[in-house]
């Protein structure tokens, strides 16, 4: 469902060009949990940010269900972004809005008075186990709870894909484990494809069906997680 072909990203800095992605090919199937692992600066963050065009690739294509997002602009790009949820390392919740308002926010963005928005928000809060925090503000929540709100928010528009940009890197090991379990459960329950980038092998081992290793802007290895554990131990 996601086909990345010959993807390159070059940053033009005053001090010279920096190649963040060099001819990256990746195919991610519907319903998979796909991990991209690499050291800081390897290009993994740029890669995931290209998938929803937060970064504009220099060349190459990214097809999502056959549509090339790299060619999209304006309204068309905003429409496809609504079907790509994203969560971040530092959560990026709206601090002046309640948990409930945060989860409702993508529905508002998508437009119109959506019938059943209240029900949808409640259902999502139940899914992430935060029903009783509906009226709380993000500042009153722990890191793990904030990421749960972010996950509920990312799922509000029933996305096909959930992009996780170092989603557990700011969390302690125990909280990381519970967030990963939640992602796994969501993947099984609603079949959303999950792409996650991380620098932690434990994260990949815990939930990824497949994994790609990125090193110096290139994918050096990819395939089913089980086959590659040994290789990661070498490179990481």
């Amino acid at each position, binding site marked *: 469902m996601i086909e990345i072909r010959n993807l390159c990203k070059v940053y033009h800095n005053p001090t010279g060009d920096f190649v963040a992605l060099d001819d990256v090919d990746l195919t991610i199937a519907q319903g998979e949990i796909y991990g991209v692992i690499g050291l800081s600066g390897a290009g993994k963050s740029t890669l995931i940010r290209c998938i929803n065009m937060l970064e504009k690739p220099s060349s190459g294509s990214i097809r999502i269900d056959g549509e090339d997002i790299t060619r999209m602009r304006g309204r068309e790009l*905003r429409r496809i972004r609504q079907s*790509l949820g994203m969560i*971040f390392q530092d959560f990026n919740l709206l601090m*002046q809005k309640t948990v409930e308002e945060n989860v409702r*926010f993508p529905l508002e*963005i998508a437009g119109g008075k959506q019938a059943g928005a209240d029900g949808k928000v409640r259902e999502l809060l139940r899914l992430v186990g935060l029903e009783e925090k509906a009226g709380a*503000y993000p*500042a009153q929540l722990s890191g793990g709870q904030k990421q749960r709100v972010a996950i509920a928010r990312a799922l509000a*528009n029933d996305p096909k894909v959930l992009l996780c940009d170092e989603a557990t890197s700011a969390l302690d090991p125990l909280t990381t484990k519970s967030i990963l379990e939640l992602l796994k459960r969501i993947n099984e329950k609603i079949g959303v494809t999950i792409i996650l980038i991380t620098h932690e092998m434990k994260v990949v081992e815990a939930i990824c069906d497949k994994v790609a290793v990125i090193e110096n802007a290139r994918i050096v290895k990819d395939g089913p997680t089980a086959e590659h554990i040994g290789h990661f131990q070498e490179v990481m």
Partner: protein
Amino acid sequence: MGAFLENYGAMLVQGTWDTLYMSFLSALFAYLMGLPLGVALAVTEPHHILPRPHVNRILNTVVNIVRSVPFIILLIAVIPFTRWLVGTSIGVTASIVPLVIGAVPFVARLVESSMKELRKGIIEAATAMGASPFQIIYKVMIPETMPSLVLGASITTITLIGYSAMAGAVGGGGLGDLAIRYGYYRYDTTLMMVTIVLLVLIVQGVQLAGTRLSKKINRQ
């Protein structure tokens, strides 16, 4: 004391009212123009949601030019414009024109700096959800920076109270006008002290209200 109030009481009440009227009304008009201008200064910067380097440069230059002109000069320079707009250049209502012109770029800078306090990640998250630049401005940037905008509004109002005293010097009215006419020209120290005390009280009140409101609405 009784004689003082009998002589000057009505005048001081009128002066206080005029000062409040000039400051608050010009603050309101200044925000009608300064808020969009401040947002435009922020969003047209490189890497923001509507990067337009040329527009950004022009806006910055215009804001800096108006801010460079000393207010007392601006006050006199815009007299023909004020006459054209409100029919007179004397009086409380007329003085609102230069006050607004002077305050718009000031407000724009305050708004711009409030916008820049917002973490980039929050705007990025909204972009990733498929929000349009306009939605990001009015559903994310403005609500998320509201506590900071409120503080800015109290700073603006207080600055305008000071400016309105200068406007008084050229026939604008208000407490500043009283302080200059009676206190400065006629050596009536008592009246001057009283107007200053009144100004101090107004400024304290505005600042206190601004700080309290900002705290009350801030959920962070």
